[in-house]
């Protein structure tokens, strides 16, 4: 190509503009001829490339077929050695012999017929047909009973949402009618089919080639673009845009080559370069927070992220506190210097540290955490779940209070105002303290570093804008305060220390909020949170620098992701560096390093917001809008969320239904992300569903379904509010409904409600009956029960693909023709289709007088279809239920005898008083 290109280029190129102006028609002809020749060249290239590939393929194939030929020959040899007489071979030789015999006998006849054959006459030779055909008597193949027809299906033990590639909407589908022997197009009308042509076509290599060469030769002008556009059947603007891209691409390529020559790219761990949000992106996208699995088939990937308003208390470690977690444990690391200085009280003081570490961790994170933290710290380590539930109210209250920025509270105003004097005073105290505990070399060093840090801050900050200045000043004050408090540790009693600690973080957060609030309206800074973050980051840089300069050797600078992981670790484990090191930063940081960093950040008051660790603060600053997913990798397999569009005029295919009420389908639940008690904006409320445990809103939300408190009824009657609302009980929500694990050897949860056993969790727990698949007594396949059951017993779930109503309408067109439909109306958004995916209950047949009934039940936020026994069913009986087809669309076989005869549509009362309300 290159040589050809240069050949064309060698033409003396006239100024295309001039040519065009002077002899427009001439030049356009030229252009077209140039393009045509280029096109011819492309076509020739294509032909030769195909030829080459065909030849390559042929060469390969020769080897393959020869190998196969040899294989077939060895088979021949194999059998030659066998003693068994091969009847096929025998017949073969017989036939050959017969032919020879015939040849002798009927030679003339053969010849004559051949003669005829040459003339392509009507009488065609049948060789030895008469002879051998009579000799061969047909061998009967014994009849084998055929199976009732079915389509290959995949077993599902839980519903799946349809993946995009399964959709038939907008696709051309042809239905072949076996009886009529004709193919019918069952797809949508033409305008509904997605026009593929309208999608933007990519420019192929050869198109680029033509484009480039033409413009190279005749220059860039409108006429050229027009004729190019015509030849390539595109828009001139597209052509132009493409050309620009090409030019740019050339440059980029050059640059890239140069760069490549200059330096080889660094081999960095891409994962460590990202920050935590980016690293978590795949987690956020792929992990289902409802089912606690990756790649959830029911709720799909890329769900809206819902963060609960209530946070869990940090993990409280009970037994391992004083055992060093490994050679790099901070306890050991600290012991070394302390033993070097050989002072037992110091030692004690350090030993003290881990015990109250949860306290300070809690304090650092949030006021709420602090309370629970201190609670734990006092040694009242009760069962976490219990304390969680009992503290529930407290927590929600505290979280409520957190939500409102306490601008009005005096402490807020207090915090920014304390000026330098206080700082000085504090530092003075600090100095005194440090003098008093001068023997603690390590501590001292650290303090000095702190001092350096703070002084750095001040000096930097001085030059800044006022609000910022103020804030930073206050932070530095805080830092000093903290520093002093930590230096006073040994002097002060633990209780006073705690009280100090308690105070410090509260104004901390408030200050952060208040600064944010104050900054908002100020003209100097437009984007308050941003600036703050910038501040913080800059501060961090300083901090890092200082660490780098002054900290002991081996303290590498912390990467962003490590910081975020650390912050998460504090959130989960509290200030337990052993656990954080083991679980989150394994291989990245040692326990001692984490401990150092922890102490360090703790003293740096605004670390939380800076690291994104203090997610409460961060969360609240953001929680007006739900957290948007980061724009990084979007994984495959996203579930398309079709906006449900109800076409009133649309034709609805035959579907099984639960409800006889026509226009009251269940509502699909989608968790809301409200961060406070749900108000009018709550998506659940607007949608008409209750809030569930998956919602972001706190437990006190008025819209929450509160579960039941049943004690004796076993939740089997409508007295149970769960049962009455067609819901299964949820051990997370209901008071007395609990689930035991395993065989009890691992301990059982404390029983409540005197040995009460909830019977309304059968779908959740998959306590289903064994169902057998067999030949139905009615038609086709049928589902049978293995063991006998009593009335209202749960038999199993009707599972399938969750598809939209629109999709169901499209699929239904084909199913209706085939007269077999596995569609089942689930709720206002979804229809279950068990055609290709489902379970054995999809084969349960319809009967107007059934022994089972189906019921849509809300189980942990999802609607599911349970099949229940309507009466006592004996072992081995076939299962039937009423499909409840919409009467005017029910297939003839599904109509009740009374209805089937008459077209008149009115309610026909039937046994058991189940009148079918006809529409």
């Amino acid at each position, binding site marked *: 190509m290159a040589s050809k290109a240069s050949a064309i280029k060698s033409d003396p190129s006239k100024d295309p503009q001039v040519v065009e102006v002077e002899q427009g028609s001439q030049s356009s002809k030229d252009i077209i001829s140039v393009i045509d020749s280029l096109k011819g060249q492309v076509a020739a290239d294509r*032909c030769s490339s195909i030829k080459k590939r065909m030849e390559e393929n042929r060469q390969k194939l020769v080897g393959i077929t020869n190998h196969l030929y040899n294989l077939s020959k060895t088979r*021949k040899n194999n*059998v030659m050695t*066998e003693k068994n007489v091969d009847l096929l071979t025998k017949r073969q030789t017989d036939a050959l012999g017969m032919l020879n015999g015939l040849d002798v006998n009927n030679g003339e006849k053969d010849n004559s017929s051949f003669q005829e054959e040459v003339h*392509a006459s009507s009488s065609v030779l049948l060789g030895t047909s008469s002879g051998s055909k009579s000799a061969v008597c047909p061998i009967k193949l014994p009849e*084998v009973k055929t*199976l009732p027809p079915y389509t*290959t299906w995949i077993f599902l033990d839980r519903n799946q949402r349809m*993946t995009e590639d399964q959709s038939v909407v907008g696709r051309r589908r042809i239905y072949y009618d076996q009886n009529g022997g004709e193919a019918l197009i069952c797809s949508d009308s033409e305008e509904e089919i997605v026009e593929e042509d309208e999608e933007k076509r990519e420019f192929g290599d050869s*198109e680029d080639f033509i484009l480039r060469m033409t413009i190279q030769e005749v220059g860039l002008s409108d006429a050229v673009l027009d004729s190019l556009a015509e030849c390539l059947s595109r828009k001139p603007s597209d052509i132009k845009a493409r050309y620009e891209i090409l030019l740019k691409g050339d440059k980029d390529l050059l640059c890239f080559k140069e760069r490549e020559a200059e330096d080889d790219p660094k081999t960095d761990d891409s994962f460590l370069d990202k920050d935590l949000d980016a690293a978590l992106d795949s987690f956020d996208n792929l992990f289902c927070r409802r089912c606690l699995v990756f790649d959830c088939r029911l709720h799909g990937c890329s769900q809206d992220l819902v963060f609960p308003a209530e946070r869990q208390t940090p993990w409280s470690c009970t037994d391992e506190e004083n055992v060093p977690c490994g050679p790099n444990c901070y306890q050991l690391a600290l012991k070394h210097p302390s033993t070097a200085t050989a002072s037992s009280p110091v030692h004690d003081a350090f030993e003290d540290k881990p015990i109250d570490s949860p306290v300070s961790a809690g304090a650092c994170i949030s006021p709420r955490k602090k309370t629970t933290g201190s609670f734990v710290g006092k040694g009242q380590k009760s069962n976490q779940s219990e304390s969680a539930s009992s503290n529930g109210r407290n927590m929600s209250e505290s979280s409520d209070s957190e939500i409102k920025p306490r601008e009005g509270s005096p402490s807020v105003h207090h915090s920014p105002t304390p000026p330098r004097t206080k700082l000085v005073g504090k530092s003075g105290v600090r100095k005194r303290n440090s003098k008093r505990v001068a023997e603690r070399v390590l501590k001292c060093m650290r303090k000095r570093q702190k001092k350096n840090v703070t002084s750095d801050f001040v000096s930097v900050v001085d030059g800044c804008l006022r609000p910022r200045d103020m804030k930073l000043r206050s932070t530095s004050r805080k830092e000093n305060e903290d520093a002093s408090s930590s230096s006073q540790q040994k002097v002060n009693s633990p209780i006073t220390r705690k009280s100090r600690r308690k105070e410090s973080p509260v104004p901390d957060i408030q200050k952060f909020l208040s600064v944010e609030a104050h900054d908002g309206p100020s003209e100097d800074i437009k984007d308050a949170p941003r600036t703050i973050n910038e501040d913080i980051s800059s501060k961090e840089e300083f901090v890092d620098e200082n660490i780098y300069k002054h900290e002991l050797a081996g303290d590498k600078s912390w990467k962003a992701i490590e910081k975020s992981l650390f912050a998460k670790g504090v959130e989960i484990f509290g200030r337990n560096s052993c656990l954080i090191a083991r679980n989150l930063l394994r291989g990245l940081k040692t326990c001692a390093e984490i401990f150092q960093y922890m102490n360090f950040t703790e003293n740096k008051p605004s670390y939380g917001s800076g690291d994104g660790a203090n997610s409460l603060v961060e969360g609240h600053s953001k929680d007006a809008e739900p957290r948007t997913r980061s724009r990084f990798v979007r994984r495959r397999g996203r579930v398309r969320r079709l906006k449900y569009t109800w076409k009133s005029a649309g034709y609805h295919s035959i579907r099984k239904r639960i409800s006889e009420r026509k226009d009251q389908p269940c509502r699909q639940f989608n968790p809301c992300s409200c961060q406070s008690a749900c108000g009018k904006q709550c998506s659940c409320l607007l949608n008409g569903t209750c809030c569930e445990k998956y919602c972001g809103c706190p437990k006190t939300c008025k819209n929450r379904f509160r579960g039941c408190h049943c004690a004796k009824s076993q939740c089997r009657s409508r007295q149970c509010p769960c049962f009455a609302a067609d819901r299964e009980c949820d051990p997370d929500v209901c008071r007395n409904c609990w689930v035991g694990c395993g065989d009890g050897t691992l301990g059982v949860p404390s029983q409540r409600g005197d040995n009460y056993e909830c019977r309304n969790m059968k779908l959740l727990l998959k306590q289903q009956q064994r169902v057998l698949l067999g030949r139905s007594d009615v038609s086709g396949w049928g589902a049978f029960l293995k063991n006998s059951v009593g009335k209202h017993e749960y038999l199993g779930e009707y599972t399938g693909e969750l598809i939209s109503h629109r999709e169901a309408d499209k699929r239904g067109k084909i199913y209706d023709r085939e007269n077999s439909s596995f569609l089942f109306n689930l709720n206002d958004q979804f229809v279950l289709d068990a055609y290709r995916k489902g379970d054995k209950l999809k084969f349960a047949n319809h009967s107007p007088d059934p022994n089972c009934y189906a019921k849509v039940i809300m189980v942990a936020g999802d609607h599911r279809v349970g099949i229940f026994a309507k009466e006592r069913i004996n072992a081995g009986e076939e299962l039937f239920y009423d499909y409840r087809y919409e009467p005017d669309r029910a297939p003839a076989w599904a109509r009740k005898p009374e209805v089937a005869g008459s077209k008149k549509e009115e309610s026909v009362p039937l046994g058991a008083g189940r009148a079918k309300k006809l529409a």
Partner: protein
Amino acid sequence: MAKTTLGCEPVVGTLTPSKKREYRVTNRLQEGKRPLYAVAFNFIDARYYNVFATVGGNRVTVYQCLEGGVIAVLQSYVDEDKDESFYTLSWACNIDGMPFLVAGGINGIIRVIDTGTEKIHKSFVGHGDSINEVRTQPLKPSLVVSASKDESVRLWNVRTGICVLIFAGAGGHRNEVLSVDFHPSDIYRIASCGMDNTVKIWSMKEFWTYVEKSFTWTDLPSKFPTKYVQFPVFIASVHSNYVDCNRWLGDFILSKSVDNEIVLWEPKTKEQSPGEGAVDILQKYPVPECDIWFIKFSCDFHYNAAAIGNREGKIFVWELQSSPPVLIARLSHMQCRSPIRQTAMSFDGSTILSCCEDGTIWRWDSTVTP
């Protein structure tokens, strides 16, 4: 069908016969009244290169091609179920080399006939609907694969009677599967096509242990842990209508829809991301009046030529591996006017058999030896 972009156009063969080879009718056989849907030579065993079989109605018949256009009937099998209508057959063989004949049809039962003992060897019940094609793995001829109306492709071990794998499910066909073929050299690879207008390439590499297990299985076949292969490695939308026949040509695929042509294309699969890839349509072999479905083509042993019948009883013989494609011959006979459902080319391509809807078998022999 996606519009081909400039520089990716296929090479289309011209319909002028090259007269490279000439054929003439040497025999015509009326087997019965019911349509014949399949005819195939035995390429599995070198002894039987001149043996072929046909299916139609509830009959399976084994013939031999002899010198001078003579066709001899060797064996005949009749299913006791009169409603059976066989659609397809394939030659296979047992481990010890006994020739098997595998046939399937509307009943959905695969019949494995041991032609060495003239007895039914096994009947495979499992498919939920009629069977549209059965093919044999040439490297391991006791493995057969079947394409069915129940939207699945299944791999069977004819020796032990085990259904080893089922190619269906989340990524499977969405309508009847009409045709399936083993890759000639890559033992793990098959291609299937059907009424959902797609061609799907499947790999059983990850499931090969099950295939091996099926040879040594001694327990009941029903207890075998049959596996579902749910995701093909490649899905190609080459056609916009039913795809009723596909065959591998080396690493390329020949497939046909009802568009009066056979298309040769290269699947460009991506190993890293299965299911994605591109199709490069290389060549097209026009076949006029071939616009009804269930017309299948066949190749000779070395894939030099392919023969395909059409709706009007004519046969087109294409040289497959030349570029541009060359039409070797166009065969027509005044009395052969009903649709030819399938053809069979002999080992070297010198004999072409065609079976018609009116129940006749036509034998064409090459007049000039190549």
